[in-house]
């Protein structure tokens, strides 16, 4: 596939170097801070589970209690395990319940030996969670060996979004039977701004279903049944994003989800979550994903729903380069990088399809080892469902021509409703026709001057923008509306109060292992 665009390897190397330079300060920031959700994720891996009668998870109650007593800057692991050791309450969930009742107080031990003991126990507890994550990963590997990966590239990715896990399950199974390789359960509109992860099986989401550990478990189990039935391992996707990104990453690892939406800037731009909060949560969640063998899906496609897909094409490239840098830094391998991009050029534009090919091929050749996530048209979809199905067909074709890794299947009703059962069927039939009938057309696709020129132009603009960001800072660029036209200053946005600077004695038994 590589080589159709004649990209100059020196220019590509320069782009990567600039992205590293632009990203490094943010990494430094992430390494020196923690958040309530990072700490809760640690506790989840350490075995704290369940929620109080109001549905507030015990991890929240426990972190809040620790924070009230000693702040967050030391990490919660040492104070919590120290309390466990001193009170003799070894079950951390029970400890959380007691803490919530006000019957436990936390502090940071002063004696070296106490610190060492607390750290040792914390490490052992966290290791339990990580071992579970490892087991799940091995399980996945085994199932893939048994059932096999999809026969074709791109993998076919379908969403379910009924809001009710018990409607989602049969729809997901039906979608898999009809040809989906990956099922994504879309989240309820409100969840990203919840500063806790809901508990249990849920049936009342709006335009999506809550991400809960139990919903993860139910869906994964159902898809295991379907994988067996079909002799093809069906992957499951959810969202490690929003205020609880690190915890959801941990839950995903423990419930064998296979892919997670996880972008370095999506929460900042589209959920108005504080940038620092996001970057700290990001790094941790990616470290967990790396360990869990989860493929991440980044969110550059979203920029093109608010900004123009031609004018802002280079911002997608810049963001992909940054996402790659952050991902590598967090330990993710190239095969785990489902970098996002989308078919969002105004279809009325002359040569719109060829511009799409140029952009898609640029991503392909810049990241040859990454399983790129190719998103369908949404912005220019209208209530004209006949035209919609046609556009989706050309999107599918562009995906096949440019060797995309993960094809998020577009629905003709994009502008109307969250997908109906029949929409998915029609969409899959569309994908199958295109992949079966024209999937090999890349053999006959040799970009001419127009496509090559456009791709090189976008890369050039990306480098210019990266130079500006390096000169300035990434935080300022985000504040200025560089990405998706959204302006998000570093000192604003939701969840900032959940961020703390790490103290010198900060200890995190999970990152210690994952770093």
């Amino acid at each position, binding site marked *: 596939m590589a080589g159709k665009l004649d990209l100059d390897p020196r220019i590509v190397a320069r782009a990567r170097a600039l992205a590293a330079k632009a990203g490094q300060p943010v990494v430094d920031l992430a390494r020196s801070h923690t958040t309530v959700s990072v700490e809760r994720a640690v506790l989840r891996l350490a075995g704290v589970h369940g929620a109080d009668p109001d549905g507030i998870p015990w991890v929240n109650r426990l972190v809040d209690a620790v924070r009230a007593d000693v702040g967050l800057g030391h990490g919660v692991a040492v104070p919590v395990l120290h309390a466990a050791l001193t009170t003799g309450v070894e079950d951390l969930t029970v400890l959380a319940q007691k803490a919530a009742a006000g019957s436990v107080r936390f502090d940071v031990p002063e004696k070296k030996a106490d610190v060492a003991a607390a750290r040792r126990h914390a490490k052992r507890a966290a290791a339990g969670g990580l071992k579970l994550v490892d087991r799940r990963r091995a399980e996945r590997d085994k199932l893939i060996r048994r059932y096999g990966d999809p026969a074709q590239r791109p993998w076919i990715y379908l969403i379910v979004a*009924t809001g009710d896990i018990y409607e989602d399950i049969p729809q997901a199974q039906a979608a898999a039977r009809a040809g989906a390789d990956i099922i994504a359960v879309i989240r309820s509109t409100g969840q990203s701004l919840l500063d806790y992860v809901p508990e249990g099986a849920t049936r009342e989401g709006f335009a999506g279903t809550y991400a809960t550990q139990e919903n993860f478990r139910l869906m994964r189990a159902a898809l295991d049944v379907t994988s067996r039935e079909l002799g093809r391992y069906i992957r499951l996707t959810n969202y490690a994003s929003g205020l609880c990104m690190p915890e959801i990453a941990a839950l995903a690892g423990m419930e064998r989800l296979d892919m997670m939406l996880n972008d370095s800037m999506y929460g900042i731009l589209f959920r108005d979550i504080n940038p620092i909060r996001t970057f700290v949560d990001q790094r941790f969640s990616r470290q967990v994903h790396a360990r869990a063998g989860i493929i991440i899906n980044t969110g550059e496609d979203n920029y093109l729903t608010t900004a123009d897909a031609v004018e802002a094409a280079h911002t997608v490239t810049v963001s992909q380069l940054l996402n790659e840098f952050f991902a590598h830094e967090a330990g993710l391998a190239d095969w785990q990088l489902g970098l996002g991009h989308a078919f969002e050029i105004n279809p009325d534009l002359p040569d719109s399809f060829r511009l799409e090919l140029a952009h898609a091929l640029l991503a392909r050749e810049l990241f040859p080892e990454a399983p790129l996530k190719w998103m369908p048209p949404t912005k220019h979809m209208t209530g004209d*469902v*006949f035209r919609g199905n046609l556009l989706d067909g050309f999107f599918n074709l562009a995906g096949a021509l440019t060797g995309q890794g993960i094809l998020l299947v577009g629905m003709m*009703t994009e502008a109307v409703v969250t997908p109906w059962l029949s929409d998915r069927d029609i969409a899959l039939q569309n994908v199958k026709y295109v992949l079966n009938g024209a999937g090999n057309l890349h053999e006959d696709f040799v970009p001419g001057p127009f496509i090559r020129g456009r791709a090189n132009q976008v890369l050039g603009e990306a480098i210019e923008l990266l130079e500006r960001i390096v000169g300035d800072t990434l935080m300022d660029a985000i504040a200025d509306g560089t990405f998706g036209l959204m302006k998000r200053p570093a000192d604003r946005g939701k969840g900032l109060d959940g961020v703390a600077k790490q103290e010198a004695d900060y200890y995190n038994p999970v990152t210690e292992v994952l770093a």
Partner: protein
Amino acid sequence: MSIIRPYGDTTGDGMVQLSFTLPIPHDKRAEGAALQLAGKMGMDPAMLVHAKQMGDEFTFFVVYGKVGHLVDTDQVQVVERDYPLLSAKEVNAVIKRRLRRRLNVVGACIGTDAHTVGIDAILNLKGIAGEKGLEYYSELSVTNMGAQVSVPDLVETAREKKADAVLVSQVVTQRDAHLHNTRAMSAAFREALPAGKRPLLIVGGPRFDELMTGELGVDRIFTRGTTPREVASYLVHALIESRS
């Protein structure tokens, strides 16, 4: 289950998709008119999701919405196959044993209709969907008159060949051509031959309603996806089994 509703993405949501053109230019009133029609069809609420003017005088609409109608599957009328599906061997055996002569079949595409693929699929050796056509059956004697056969010619040939059954295909339906032609055909046979001598009259085509045999004056109607075996089995059933 006997009472069901359309399904969008949740059991019982009643959702359907509808599109149509109204002969008025596009404006708010036109959209209201479109919603009025959707309402009369029982859509409530109805969402008008697309409207596009075509030329000066027409507007195309797409509407999504919920219908309140219940579907009672117990009340559904269908023509179920009321005869056993036989293999070619069995068909031949029955004819040989019971009729003791070959069964004569005359087929044609009548009127100005020239779509022979359907009738050929039933009659010609080649058949369809992996099944051989009636010509393959050793005990059937098949005359395929081809396309655009006039009704008098058909009656004449049926008489000449001593047809036990006449198979007529009709594909073009504009202005109900298929219904007119079928009625003309059955009337001609009624006129030409006394009841006892009349061949079994069968019509087929993708847009027939199987329930209309009475209205059209024919014995049986076959539609989309018919296979030769079904027709052969029916012939044996109607001409031999049920006459004994």
